């Protein structure tokens, strides 16, 4: 069964360092998303991406964050200068169909980021 894969599963970094989280969406999907979940809290939207452009972003997704699809398979989230409050589980998701007929979103296993 096709799945969304994410690497690394866990990354520990020092405050101020740059982090890149990688995702391989399901191959025939065209719509990509990043969400995050601080431990024990709800899932928060960060950004949606389609046709090599950001479709929508949240207030959390400030200038320290960027996304890229560097090749035909990977979808990356970069945090330029990490802060303590960036510690969270980051989930990548993809869907075959986008807004307004958004179908099922398939989520990856997540990348746990710990900022010290």
């Amino acid at each position, binding site marked *: 069964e096709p799945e969304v894969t994410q690497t690394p599963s866990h990354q520990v970094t020092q405050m101020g360092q740059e982090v890149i989280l990688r995702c391989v969406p399901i191959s025939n999907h065209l719509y990509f998303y990043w969400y995050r979940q601080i431990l024990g809290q709800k899932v928060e939207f960060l950004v*949606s991406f389609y046709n090599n452009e950001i479709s929508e972003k*949240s207030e959390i997704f400030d200038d320290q964050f960027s996304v890229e699809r560097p090749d035909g398979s990977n979808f990356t989230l970069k945090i330029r200068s990490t802060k303590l409050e960036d510690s969270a589980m980051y989930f990548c998701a993809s869907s075959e169909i986008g807004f307004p007929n*958004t179908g099922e979103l398939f989520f*990856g296993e997540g990348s746990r980021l710990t900022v010290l």
Partner: protein
Amino acid sequence: ELKVEQNPLFLSMQEKKNYTIYCNYSTTSDRLYWYRQDPGKSLESLFVLLSNGAVKQEGRLMASLDTKARLSTLHITAAVHDLSATYFCAALGFQKLVFGTGTRLLVSP
């Protein structure tokens, strides 16, 4: 701005009992999603409800959507321990899903 609320936040159930989780959302949304999350794990899609009056069932779980009331329910029938998890609803906003606060379900003998 679309906001999604769930209640209860925590639900302790006995096996074989029935219960319902409620999901309210603040503005018009045509689609409602239910996900299950086990501790430390990803989000597993349970249901996608596409229209008013939609009802979907899988095993002991049944979800319904009333877009006029801006309400979705997840009904659990004859709970078993394997259903212990956190359940999230999410409403479709502009280019994104907006998640509820989650309901942590614990089923005990």
